[in-house]
C-alpha cells in the first residue's frame, strides 16, 4: 500500500511529473492510508449508549483500546472514491487481459442480484423459506448441464481452481471406490494447460507428469501415448488451451485416457469460446469447472467473487460433494447436508454453504437474457474478435502459432519482434498503460518466449478493436524507430510510475506497522 505515497514525489526516471505542495495532481487527489487519515477518537457512526445490559464477557473484556483508527463518513467515502479513481476497470475501457475474460458485466444482472428476495437471504434460513433461491440454483444447474452435456453439477466451488479441486477430489474418490486409490497416482498435465492444473493435482496427492506441446501449440499425442499406463489417474487438459487453440485431438485424448483406466479433467476456464458450439460431455470429459465469472459475465478481478460450478460425468457424479439440492416427492427442493443422506458417496464438503448465490443470480440472468442463440453468438463473437486482433497484429508482432489455424478466444504473440529492438514484453505492456489500456497478459503461457496474450472478449465493438490495434501498431513503429526510452521509462502518465516488482516480491510489506510509518515520517 505504501506505493500510494509515490504520487507525492515521483521517483521514476524520464521527465518527472511536476511536484505540488499538496501531493495531489490537478484534480487527482493524493491518497493516504486510512491509518494516516483517521484517529482513534473519531467515528462516523453515533451509537446509543448501551443501557442495562449484563456484562457476559467476564475476564475476557478488553482492557486496552484495539488501536484501530476511526474515520468520519466523508473521510471513508473520499478514501475509497479516490482509490477507485486510480483504478482501471472494464467499465472504463478495453481490458484485453488474456485468459481472464474481462468482458462487460450486464447491468441487468446487477439489478436481478439486488432483488431483495435474493439479496437479503441468509444461508441458514429454513429450506421452506428459500424455495425461490433453490429453484434458481436448480434452473442454473439445468442450463449448465444442458450446455455441457454432462450428468451432474457441483454448485459449491467458489472459483476456478476450487472447481479443479472439486473435480480432482471426485476423481480421487472414484479411484478409491475402485480400490485403485493407491495404485493410480499419476496425473498427466500438458504444458499448454493452465498453471493451476498441476498445482491442483499435487494438492490432491497426485504426482504430476508433464508432457510437452507440439510445434503447433497442441498436446503432443506421441508423448501422451508413451505416458499412459496402469498407474495413471487421469489427465488435466485445458481446452481451448492457453495458446488460444482448440485441442483438436480431444476426443482421441479422452478415449486413450479412458482405455488406460483414467479420468479426463478438462479445465473449463476458456469455455467461453465454445459455449453452444461443443458439449464437453460429447468429447468424453469426466469433470470440468465452469468459471461463471468469465463465461457468464459475473464480475471478477477485484469486482466480485468468482464461482466455479463443476460438471461431472455419470462415472463421477456419485462422488459429488455435499451440500447439493434434491427434489422431494412433494416437489419442494431441499439441501442434502450430510453424506449419510446422499444417494452416492460424496467425497466431502468444499465450503460451509452451497456456493456464491449472488453469482448464480447474475449468471442465470445472463443466460436467460441471451437465450441459447445469444450464448452461442457470444462465443462466436469472442472467437471472431480474437481472430481480428490476430489478423491485424500478426504482421508486426510474431504470432508463433498463426500457422496452426484460427485462434479461439485469445491471440498469442511472442516477444521476438520487439526483442530485436532491445525491448521486452513488460516494456510494451507499460507503454500501453500510458495509452490508456490495461495491458494484455504478460509472460504467460510459458511455452512461448515473452508471451503477450490478448483476449478481446465478445463485448468489444470493431471500432474499439481497431483503436487498440492502431495503438499496438504505432508502438511497434516506435520500437522499430529505436526510441527505447519511450518504453523503458513507461508508464509516465499513470497515477504511479513503474513499480518495483522485484522489490515487492523480495521484500513484501504485507501489513501496516506503526513503527514503519513513524520512521517514514521522520525521514
Amino acid at each position, binding site marked *: 500500500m505504501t506505493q500510494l505515497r509515490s504520487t507525492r514525489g515521483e521517483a521514476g526516471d524520464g521527465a518527472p511529473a511536476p511536484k505540488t505542495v499538496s501531493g495531489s495532481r490537478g484534480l487527482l487527489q493524493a491518497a493516504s492510508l486510512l491509518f494516516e487519515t483517521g484517529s482513534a477518537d473519531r467515528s462516523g457512526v453515533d451509537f446509543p449508549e448501551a443501557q442495562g445490559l449484563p456484562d457476559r464477557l467476564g475476564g475476557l473484556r478488553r482492557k486496552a483500546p484495539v488501536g484501530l483508527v476511526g474515520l468520519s463518513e466523508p473521510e471513508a467515502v473520499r478514501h475509497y472514491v479516490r482509490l477507485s479513481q486510480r483504478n482501471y476497470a472494464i467499465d472504463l475501457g478495453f481490458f484485453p487481459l488474456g485468459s481472464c475474460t474481462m468482458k462487460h458485466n450486464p447491468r441487468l444482472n446487477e439489478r436481478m442480484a439486488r432483488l431483495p428476495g435474493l439479496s437479503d437471504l441468509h444461508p441458514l434460513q429454513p429450506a421452506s423459506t428459500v424455495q425461490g433461491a433453490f429453484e434458481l440454483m436448480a434452473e442454473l444447474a439445468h442450463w449448465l448441464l444442458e450446455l455441457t452435456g454432462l450428468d451432474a453439477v457441483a454448485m459449491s466451488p467458489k472459483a476456478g481452481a476450487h472447481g479443479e479441486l472439486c473435480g480432482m477430489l471426485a476423481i480421487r474418490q472414484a479411484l478409491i471406490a475402485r480400490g485403485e486409490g493407491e495404485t493410480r497416482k499419476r496425473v498427466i498435465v500438458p504444458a499448454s494447460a493452465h498453471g493451476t492444473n498441476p498445482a491442483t493435482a499435487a494438492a490432491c496427492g497426485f504426482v504430476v507428469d508433464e508432457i510437452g506441446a507440439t510445434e503447433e501449440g497442441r498436446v503432443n499425442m506421441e508423448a501422451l501415448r508413451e505416458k499412459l499406463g496402469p498407474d495413471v489417474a487421469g489427465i488435466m487438459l485445458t481446452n481451448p488451451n492457453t495458446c488460444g487453440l482448440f485441442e483438436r485431438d480431444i476426443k482421441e485424448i479422452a478415449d486413450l485416457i479412458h482405455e488406460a483406466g483414467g479420468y479426463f479433467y478438462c479445465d473449463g476456464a476458456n469455455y467461453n469460446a465454445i459455449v453452444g458450439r461443443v458439449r464437453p460431455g460429447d468429447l468424453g470429459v469426466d469433470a470440468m469447472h465452469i468459471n461463471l465469472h468469465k463465461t457468464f459475465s459475473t464480475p471478477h478481478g477485484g469486482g466480485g467473487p468468482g464461482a466455479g460450478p463443476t460438471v461431472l460425468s455419470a462415472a463421477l457424479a456419485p462422488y459429488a460433494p455435499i451440500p447439493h439440492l434434491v427434489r422431494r416427492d412433494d416437489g419442494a427442493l431441499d439441501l442434502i447436508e450430510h453424506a449419510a443422506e446422499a444417494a452416492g458417496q460424496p467425497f466431502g464438503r468444499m465450503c460451509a454453504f452451497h456456493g456464491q448465490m449472488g453469482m448464480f443470480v447474475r449468471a442465470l440472468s445472463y443466460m436467460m437474457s441471451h437465450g441459447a442463440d445469444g450464448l452461442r453468438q457470444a462465443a462466436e463473437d469472442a472467437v471472431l474478435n480474437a481472430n481480428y486482433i490476430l489478423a491485424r497484429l500478426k504482421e508486426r508482432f510474431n504470432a508463433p502459432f498463426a500457422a496452426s489455424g484460427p485462434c479461439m478466444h485469445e491471440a498469442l504473440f511472442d516477444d521476438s519482434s520487439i526483442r530485436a529492438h532491445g525491448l521486452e514484453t513488460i516494456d510494451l505492456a507499460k507503454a500501453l498503460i500510458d495509452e490508456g489500456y490495461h495491458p494484455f497478459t*504478460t*509472460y504467460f503461457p*510459458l511455452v512461448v518466449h515473452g508471451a503477450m496474450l490478448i483476449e478481446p472478449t465478445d463485448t468489444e465493438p470493431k471500432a474499439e478493436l481497431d483503436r487498440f490495434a492502431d495503438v499496438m501498431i504505432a508502438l511497434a513503429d516506435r520500437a522499430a524507430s529505436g526510441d527505447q526510452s519511450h518504453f523503458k521509462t513507461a508508464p509516465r502518465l499513470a497515477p504511479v510510475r513503474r513499480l518495483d*516488482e*522485484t522489490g515487492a*516480491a*523480495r521484500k513484501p510489506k504485507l501489513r501496516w506497522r506503526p513503527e514503519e510509518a513513524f520512521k517514514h515520517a521522520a525521514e
Partner: protein
Amino acid sequence: MTVKYTPDHEWVRLEGDLAIVGITTYAAEQLGDVVYVELPALGKSFAKGADMAVVESAKAASDVYAPVSGEVVAVNEAIVGNPQLVNDGPEGEGWFVKLKLKDPSECDGLMDAAAYRTHIGG
C-alpha cells in the same frame, strides 16, 4: 575441474565425488530478477531428472532438475535469503546445491560448454 551443462539450463561442476549444481547464466538472464528460491533438504536423494529446487522470478516459476543422481550434502542458504546472488553470479556464488554423486558415469551424457553454447543458439 569440469563444468557440464544440461539441456534444461543447469550447470554441474565436478569436484571429486561432489557435483555442485546451479542454473546457467543464460537461464538467469531469461528469468530476469530472481525473487524466490526453494532448496531441497539436506540428506535428500534425487534421481537424475527429478525436480530438485524451484526458482522464481517476476516472470516465471521454474523447476530445477537434478542433472545427475545423488544425495544433497550442502545447500546454498545465501541465495534463499538473497536471491539476487543468482543473478549476480549464477555460475559462481549463486550455486544451488552440492550432490554426492551416485553414478559418476551419468556425467558423460551431459554437454560441455561448447555444446551448450550451440544448444542455446549462441
